[in-house]
């Protein structure tokens, strides 16, 4: 099949795409975008998380048909135009939310989806927001700290821009 979609802000047309491939396979194996990880390949761990039209999706369970004509954002697409880290990424570093890092791309994406949906989540809401993502290293607490801090910072920034 032919596939048309927007990947990290850039329109992309791919030909000779096997319909059976998942979005994760396409990203990692064909496009060389290895930020999204394969932790289980069965939709349980969230390491492969991406945004499809701004909503959280597990790319290992996303058939390409669901991507055709849509917009996909991966961890590689979260940084600013000059390569700056996003507020969420900075907060992950600042709050020690990264240990082995294998869950991190998926976790940052899940947090991004959450903050787009709910810009001012409570800690309990943050925990629910990342409940689809397993982290075996951190015990989640510093991840929750980071997301909480990034939310506050995003709100403050928007406030400034509006003001």
């Amino acid at each position, binding site marked *: 099949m032919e596939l048309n979609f927007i990947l990290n802000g850039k329109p992309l047309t791919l030909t000779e795409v096997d319909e059976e491939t998942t979005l994760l396979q396409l990203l*990692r194996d064909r496009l*060389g975008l*290895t*930020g*999204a*990880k*394969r*932790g*289980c*390949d*069965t939709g*349980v*761990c969230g*390491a492969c998380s991406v945004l499809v039209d701004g909503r959280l999706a597990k790319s290992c369970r996303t058939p390409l048909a669901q991507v055709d004509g849509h917009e996909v954002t*991966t*961890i*590689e697409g979260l*940084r600013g135009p000059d390569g700056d*880290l996003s507020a969420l*990424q900075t907060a*992950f*570093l*600042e*709050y*020690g939310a*990264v*240990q*082995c*890092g*294998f*869950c*991190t*791309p998926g976790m*940052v994406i899940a947090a991004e989806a959450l903050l787009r949906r709910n810009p001012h989540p409570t*800690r309990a809401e*943050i*925990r*629910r927001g*990342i*409940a689809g*993502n*397993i*982290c*075996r*290293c*951190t*015990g*989640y*607490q*510093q*991840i*929750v700290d980071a997301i909480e801090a990034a939310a506050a910072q995003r709100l403050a920034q928007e406030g400034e821009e509006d003001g």
Partner: protein
Amino acid sequence: MGNLRYVGHEEVRSVDGWARVTGEAKYVCDMTLPGMLYAKVLRSPLPHARILTLDLAPALALPGVVAAITQADFVEHGNFGWPVRDNYVLAYQKVRYQGEAIAVVAAETEAVAKAGVEAIRLELAALPVVGDMQAALDADAPRIPPATVETDGNLGETIILRYGDPEPLLAASPVVVETSYDLRHQEHAYLETEGALAIPEPDGGVTLFANNQSPFINRDIVASVLGLPPQQVRSIQPHIGGTFGGKDDVLYECSAQVAKLALLTGRPVRLIFTRAESMLASYKRQALRVQLQLGADEHGNLQAAQVEMLADSGAYASMTPMAAWRATMHAAGAYRYQAVHVDTQVIYTNNGYSGAFRGFGNTQAAAAVEMAIDELAERLHRDPLEFRLQNCLRQGDRTMTGNLVEHEVGLAACLEWVRERSEWERQRARYASQPADAPRRHGIGVACYFHGCGLGGEGTDFAVSTLKIERDYSITLTSGLTDFGQGSRTVFTMLAAEELGVEMSRIQMLRPDTRTAIDSGPTVASRASIVGGNAVRVTAAKLGQRLRLAAADLCACAPAQLVRAGEQYVGPHAEPHSFEEVVDHARALGLQLAAEGRWEIPAVEWNLETGTGKPNFAYVFGAQVAEVEFNPRTGWTKVTGLWAAHDGGVILYPQGARGQLYGGIAQGVGYALMEGYLFKDGVPQRTDLRSYRVPRAIDLPEIEGTFIETRLNEGPYGAKNLAEPVMVGTAPAIANALFQATGVRVQQLPIPRQPRA
């Protein structure tokens, strides 16, 4: 620590964070090379069987399959094992656990490799399965280990501890608790599955990128089964997605397999486990069965302990003998006794195989004894926390192995901290008076622990580090101990910068590579900070001394008169000199700007025959309180509060230390309530992350933790260790809390979910 620039500072950040948070960090599964082949493994469908037929021809006949291997492709059938040589990189004659690797196929694509594996003709003759440790010891039980290994049937090893004579003391104790525990297997479930990439080299050797924990041991094993000198095998560690003790033996197998295929085909070969494969074929935390007798006098002073343990090693020894040794050395907990005897048997079964996992035997041992101590306190009508405070180790006491603790001990302070922060007395009293028919029952419980630093009597404990000042004035650092997410790279970088008085950004720590670093033994037992840290410090001190000489010469003063201002060297008379000027001058003087340093843990000795000696040179301590909510109708337990205090000496990297604390506790919650890798007649019951549940963010409460700082003179800047022991107190604290909630004692981990309405 006012004059330290990095050590103990809140602002220090992970040196690997940036690459990981951007998704740019390359793990082995992210690495591809032109012409690379994909490997897939044929695994045993049976837990115990003889191999009758193994025919690769149908696989090799498939278009796209390039090579396939069996044990016959390795020296001595690929026999390996560290410390016991009872394993094979591919099954030889027999399979001893379900999931054991039998053959490997390399093909142009993953799909073809898979088809190749399916095409292999394999015929097995099932053998009787030994799924129970007691049954394994029966005289007529089928023998599991290969005949080449010296064992008494399926009894691999017996480990004893003899301190005094507990029998008369127990007989004279007015209160004796006698109890037993069944602690099940636990899966590491690191988020990144096992993987290795092998690249053939023009000299006939091979370079490996593998997510293993101990690259030097991997190099030596791969070289020996390939019949190559160790220098021709180079093992490089890329970013690693978690290990927790779990990426040793299974990685040696998989590294040897891809290395062989790379040599046969002349092409790079990569093997990445699927999650199901990882859960099936990797080793676990060993199951332990523990029988305990504890006695106390009428004043509540602990008198003696007698412990018997069976450790389920599974099909191969791996590190189970060492973990069982550690369990033995900690079996009666962090208390004062007059006498303790422990007898531990390490047993072969067909229950997968077991090895190293965070806590290394102490996770199980501490769980058992802390549940028993709680029961003893109850029988004495004593508050469990108060009872622990009365009996816990303090500086100058003797441990349960009879050794004097000369260094500072923060255990009582840890207990007091968790008591205060959890509002222990108030909550305890409140839950004691809750109505018996409440729809939700609450409880609060405590546990404490100690944990010997370093390998102890488990092996020679040293590390080597190197430092080199490059032409661009950056400094290259290597260590033979590795980082797999626990933060040693950050700690080592910080220690080098601290000792040399330079910016952390000047130091580039190379990825662990057997060609550039120097062998330092295995990275286990949370020894990286103390042993590896000291090695870095010693090395940096050597290099720093040379720079000081050069600086003194430049500043026309004695080295002792120099002070530092930032990176600058300042003498009493002349202008300050920059780091770069001092380096240039040192070079001009012909001083060597590279250094190597080694550090070894103070000698300890354990006599395996008599069961006496000194198992560890120092200990860390800690205490945890857990609060639970139990739903009698569903049997569901939720942890609603956790307080943790850990005495890890001086904390070098606070943010990283907190991460270890929270992460360890999370694994402890899993161990207590949800994980349990269960076998039924040797067949694993949960080989995916849906049925084997690990804690998610919603399964954990907000954790309140702290570090009680004591000083260990031998540690770098007074530090001890923490990555492993922090998980040790969690499961028993939860079990003891659940007792207050339900009135029923826990005898099994994970705690079976039982409705009680």
